[in-house]
């Protein structure tokens, strides 16, 4: 991996006065405090991707991350997944620092990353095989059910190159759901799916997360999607990204009909406003 752990200048500057709410230390499932992460760029360059991110997530919460392109959302997700060592700050899951990937987390990657030599069904069972949870016929049956959920039952024996981008993305989702993670990390999973399928998938995803008490971090560029899904919408600034606003969406669940309600539109407008100023860089430092 072409990344290196780079200590940012910010720790030394003594940033104790960060405005992290975090009321109850013990109740946080996932907790980021002052998390910064920098990539080693070209030569001696350092690319500060995220800067002092604070975020506390409770078990079962659905949190959407929104922000301008390149602001470090994928980077943050990778850090939570355990792929990238953070440069400074604290990143804990159930109180323990995140050091490496674990079976409690699953990621729906921005690029589908399907194994080209496996058919769709065996791509979905891949996570199960790797984590050694279940295998063989049981895994196949489980995967079959998830394929049905994402509407790809008819393509179980197709190969990834025979699917459209949106279909591949749905396989990617099914593969992550198959391992029944506690924490689901989703990186723009529905970006290339048509509007109708997307709404159906959103409803399914909410249902699954509720039933299985899954905690979710969901990156998206779609404000409506964020408001529809989220208990909280966190808005990042431009790179180096930090969370400038944490909008709590108090719409009752299930939200199948929520899109038609005036409150929904009000939330969309609120988030759009925050996002607009975050993208323009005005909200920096609030």
């Amino acid at each position, binding site marked *: 991996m072409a990344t290196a752990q780079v200590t940012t200048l910010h720790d030394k500057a003594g940033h104790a006065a960060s405005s992290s709410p975090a009321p109850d230390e013990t109740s946080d499932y996932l907790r980021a405090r002052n998390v910064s992460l920098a990539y080693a760029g070209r030569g001696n360059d350092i690319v500060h991707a995220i800067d002092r991110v604070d975020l506390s997530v409770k078990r079962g919460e659905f949190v959407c991350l929104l922000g301008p392109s390149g602001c470090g959302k994928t980077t943050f997700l990778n850090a939570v997944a355990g*792929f990238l060592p953070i440069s400074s700050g604290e990143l804990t899951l159930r109180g323990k620092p995140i050091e490496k990937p674990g079976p409690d987390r*699953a990621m729906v990657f921005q690029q589908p990353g399907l*194994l080209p030599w496996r058919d769709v069904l065996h791509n979905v069972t891949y996570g199960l095989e*790797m984590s050694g949870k279940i295998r063989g016929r049981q895994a196949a049956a489980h995967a079959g059910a998830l394929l049905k959920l994402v509407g790809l039952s008819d393509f179980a024996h197709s*190969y990834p*190159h025979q699917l459209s981008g949106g279909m591949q993305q749905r396989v990617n989702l099914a593969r992550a759901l198959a*391992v029944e993670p506690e924490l689901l990390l989703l990186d723009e999973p529905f970006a290339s799916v048509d509007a109708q399928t997307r709404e159906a998938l959103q409803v399914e995803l909410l249902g699954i997360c509720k039933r299985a008490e899954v905690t979710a971090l969901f990156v998206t560029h779609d404000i409506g999607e964020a408001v529809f899904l989220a208990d909280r919408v966190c808005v990042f600034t431009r790179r180096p990204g930090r969370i400038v606003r944490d909008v709590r969406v108090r719409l009752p669940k299930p939200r199948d009909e929520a899109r038609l309600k005036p409150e929904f539109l009000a939330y969309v407008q609120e988030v759009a406003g925050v996002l607009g100023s975050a993208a323009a860089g005005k909200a920096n430092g609030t």
Partner: protein
Amino acid sequence: MAIVVTLDSSGTPTRQASSTLARLGQRSERAVLGTAFIVLLFVVWQLVTAFGIEPPILLPSPAGVANAFANLFSSSDIWFDFAASGEELFYGFALAAVVGIIAGLAIGWYPRLGYFFDPFINFLYAVPRVALGPLLIVWLGIGLNSKVALVFLIAVFPVLVNTSSGVRSLDQHLVRVARCFGAGDLKIFRTIALPGSVPFILGGLRLAIGQSLIGVFVAELLGAQHGIGAMIENAGQQFQTDIVFAGLLIFAAAGMVLTAIVRWLERRFDAWRI
């Protein structure tokens, strides 16, 4: 009539009419053109010999070569030659395949092993390895061993180099996906590096076929009782060009059959590739 777009092996879309006749025509286009050139060569060859432009001792006629074939197969000597060359080819190639694949996987997978062996491998890869023949004879004698060793040494490198570069070029994104699901190194090797390098391995084997045949010929040139290469060498010294031609065709046929087998394997394994 329905038009179906399919992607051929290079990923270029081709329009396919679903009428059987048109489809047959398209599929056989390759075969027809490929055969046409061979037929053309034969015609020119026949004409050149028929008009006596070249004397038969330099260029035998197609009929002469056919005749030589008939003569060769009427005696049992040819079977000794087949057996000898076949044995050298089989052992040398099989050894090259097994060693090349295993060593290539190991060297590609463990970077340190790569650092350790790469300079030596590059050195041997650059050397014209047929030049090792005389040395091998000194070391291993004139018999089967030195010949198998030469074939092996010539053929192992394409397999090894291809295999290791296949393992090294593994998709880092897929590795990340695997790690995300808790896969350790061994599982990553088995489920990503290995299947990912199959096309490279088969490509290496395909190159190794031609190299092995060179090995067989050179090994027999350096001294052999039997073998197709030895037969060609003897016939050449006695200006029996028709037998030389027959021998060349045997070599070519062996190469083509083996290549066809590897290509068949490639198609089987490449169902997932466009």
